[in-house]
């Protein structure tokens, strides 16, 4: 007699792709704006990007209800930090906070695949990539979400940065200029949209650099 299993799952996958690229003095974070469930599109205009701190931006794909809850928890923790320390959280500090927040729900995970991008305390671009339960590493570029298996090999080909584990150490940030990186991101999303049904509609691109934060949109195929 096989056991009766629950037909209801607390999770759903709303699809979408996210990308982040770190430069010598900038960071580009991008995500598409399509939100789907199964074969249906819920909306073409949903932002997966959250501005957590002055120099720290997070893009998350997966189950958007969990993503929204996660964004709220992180914002609240950041506000507490600002009250206690009288300064903004740095990107590496936020990276550790996100990892711990994800791991505290190790037995009932946030179904959220995140990339965190921003500027470190030296003003250099930094990108942190996560799995759903909080394991993370600092990298030069990353993609997560339904289109990540399509996007990642292309980024590896264009940007393959030397591993931070090599000895003698080599810098992980890409030699590309900010304009070239934004152009690369647009190309990558256009390609992913062609072959991934969950990616499309629009791509929201956020650029963080010494002058501040800058946002732009690009139209993608809507089919």
């Amino acid at each position: 007699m096989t056991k009766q299993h629950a037909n209801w799952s607390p999770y759903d996958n709303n699809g979408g792709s996210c990308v982040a690229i770190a430069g010598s003095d900038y960071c580009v974070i991008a995500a598409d704006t399509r939100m789907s469930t199964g074969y249906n599109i819920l909306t073409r205009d949903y932002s997966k990007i959250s501005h957590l701190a002055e120099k720290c931006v997070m893009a998350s794909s997966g189950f958007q209800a969990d993503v929204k809850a996660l964004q709220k928890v992180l914002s609240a923790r950041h506000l507490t930090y600002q009250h206690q320390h009288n300064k903004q959280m740095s990107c590496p500090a936020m990276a550790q906070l996100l990892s711990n927040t994800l791991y505290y729900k190790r037995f009932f995970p946030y179904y959220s695949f995140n990339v965190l991008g921003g500027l470190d305390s030296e003003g250099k671009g930094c990108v942190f990539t996560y799995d759903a339960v909080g394991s993370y590493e600092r990298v030069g570029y990353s993609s997560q979400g339904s289109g990540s298996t399509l996007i990642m090999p292309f980024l590896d080909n264009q940007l393959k940065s030397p591993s931070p584990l090599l000895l003698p150490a080599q810098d992980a940030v890409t030699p590309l200029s900010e304009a070239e990186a934004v152009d690369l991101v647009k190309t990558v999303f256009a390609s992913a949209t062609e072959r991934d049904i969950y990616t499309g509609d629009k791509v929201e691109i956020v650029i963080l650099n010494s002058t501040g934060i800058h946002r732009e949109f690009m139209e993608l195929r809507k089919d």
Partner: protein
Amino acid sequence: MKLDTSGLESFPSLILHGNDVAGEISAPPSFDLPNSNDFDGFLKEAIQMVKPAKGTTTLAFIFKEGVMVAADSRASMGGYISSQSVKKIIEINPYMLGTMAGGAADCQFWHRNLGIKCRLHELANKRRISVTGASKLLANILYSYRGMGLSVGTMIAGWDETGPGLYYVDSEGGRLKGTRFSVGSGSPYAYGVLDSGYKYDMSIEEASELARRAIYHATFRDGASGGVASVYYVGPTGWKKLSGDDVGELHYHYNPVTPSTTVEQEMVDAAAA
């Protein structure tokens, strides 16, 4: 179901604000549990979703001069390589290292927690914690979560008052003291090279070369291992990273392509039409 969360309580219980909202956010952490009748089944499905990285090769051995620790850097999620640059050798403190095999998040989180506990021990007892003690702390925490789906296969290597120390600790609650260990899907291959080349009386250079070779051979034969072979040495003054080499390059270092190597067929440009 009451979980043992003592492993998470490394924060002082004195919280300075009386405000409930802030207190709630900064309260000692506890694990959220789903309201499910079938907790095991729910966990099984959650684990499938999370798909922790398991493919790996790590090794550590004690020799005359101290402890040598080495690992690859590949993380795989099913058949997809999610990263080629994962740090699998975790620096717990300046004289102790931990290796990562199994769930990446589990290893990262609990090793960091172990580092915090070791530091608290130092502050409370005015002396460094022994490798025996540190490995026991970790093993006890993992034992209390036994059956909950944590996946950790780690080696704690360090140098304390009694000399070099090496322990294997896993998420089933196992803890073994030993002189030679290899953990992960590539471990059979690493053992082959390691066991056949091992001598207690090796110099640091010989030992690091043995460790590097063992990792290289494991990455060659095991699809789930690859990336960068890192080698660390733990001596009386603490640990030091000796090398980090891309295994693709190591392949040509160990198997050089010489011009005199005969080829079966040589490609010649086609004659112009």
